[in-house]
């Protein structure tokens, strides 16, 4: 039992997908790029979503977006629109689609796809500059991390 529990914890840390999660290749976008169904069937943790958005090694969303609620974390970029109030004018489904693969909503967007594992030109192994081991990359964010980010974005009501 202990071993099983440990393996589960390690899988969690490594960010591996769970069987119940919608796999990156199975995402169902509607014609506007939104994703109706939760990727995990579990509620997102907004607090964790905030951490992911500010963390350089995770979403690093503030590299491009200014978010007043995250102003304790330096530094906020200007490449994308400021996100204050986005939870008021975008639905959960729209936000899920944008975070998973923004190019389905905004054609040709510079915003990276955070739940995509193949179809890249010269994919690398993270930020090492080296070739990856397999021909599929782990998604930048796990299914649950996407849900957490969406939950946080929905808290951004005042813009």
């Amino acid at each position: 039992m202990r071993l099983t529990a440990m393996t589960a914890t390690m899988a969690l840390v490594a960010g591996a997908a769970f069987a119940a999660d919608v796999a990156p290749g199975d995402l169902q976008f509607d014609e506007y790029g939104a994703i109706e169904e939760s990727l995990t069937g579990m509620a997102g943790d907004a607090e964790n979503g905030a951490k992911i958005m500010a963390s350089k090694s995770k979403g690093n969303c503030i590299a491009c977006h200014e978010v007043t609620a995250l102003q304790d974390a330096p530094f906020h970029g200007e490449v994308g629109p400021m996100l204050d109030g986005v939870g008021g004018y975008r639905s959960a489904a729209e936000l899920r689609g944008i975070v998973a693969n923004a190019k389905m909503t905004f054609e040709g967007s510079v915003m990276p796809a955070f739940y995509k594992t193949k179809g890249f030109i010269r994919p690398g192994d993270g930020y090492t500059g080296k070739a990856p081991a397999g021909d599929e990359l782990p998604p930048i964010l796990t299914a649950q991390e996407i849900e957490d980010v969406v939950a946080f974005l929905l808290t951004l009501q005042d813009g």
Partner: protein
Amino acid sequence: MKFKALTAAVALFAAPMAFAGGADDDNLVINGDLEITTKAAAPQHLDGVLDEVISGWHFRSDETQALEMDDFDNPGMIFVDQAVDQWNTAEGSEGKSCADCHGAPEDMAGVKAVYPKWNEAAGEVRTLQMQMNDCRTNRMGADAWKYDAGDAINMVALMSSVSRGMPVNVATDGPAAELWQKGKDLYYTRTGQLELSCANCHEDNYGNYIRADHLSQGQINGFPAYRLKNAKLNGVHSRFKGCVRDTRAETYSPGSEEFIALELYVASRGNGLSVEGPSVRN
């Protein structure tokens, strides 16, 4: 310079707010008399893409800019001095130095401005480092220098310093056209898991901050660049490699055909700007 009195911490926190909004309007004059063209009308091949080409100098803080305005403050000039010694040192089986064939470093003024350049005899586009290694191996009987490493990059800095103020004028036509097109294709290719091209950052977003970095046009007229971040001179290909790596991509290597092509193309985007290296960047 009063800006130097600012502490690093203040400068760091003030930067994103104080300079947001693009290139500044400062003028770059080195040693009080060497005027550097840091903004120029874009070359014709950029019609419809950019109106003006701008040196990366305009996107740096006043403190960093000031370091480039006086050769005594420019840490890159230490390496230029080392290269002058190297220039005069005989090496290899022929017992020759660079000076034996080329005279004084100042006699090479103008050379850096036109590289990378088509070499008719070799039937290839050569970067300055390729040409220097050709001299070393074929005329001096010495070992080739490692690409972008110490000796090579110091010598590029010397060649650049004696061309400072002269306009970059890299040929894009004739026999160089094919490689130039390849470089252009690379410039617009969205690489890595982040699917970003050079153009996404340096054409679509110059002037914007990406996290704490103020994006420039990614011009190379100022190379080699002394970076405060790693306290050494950095070559063009090494810089490209870092940028490609930051798209979560498998990079190309310094000296590779891809980066030679990209250097030719990126250099030509700066046609009209002054040769400015060794520059100082963060």
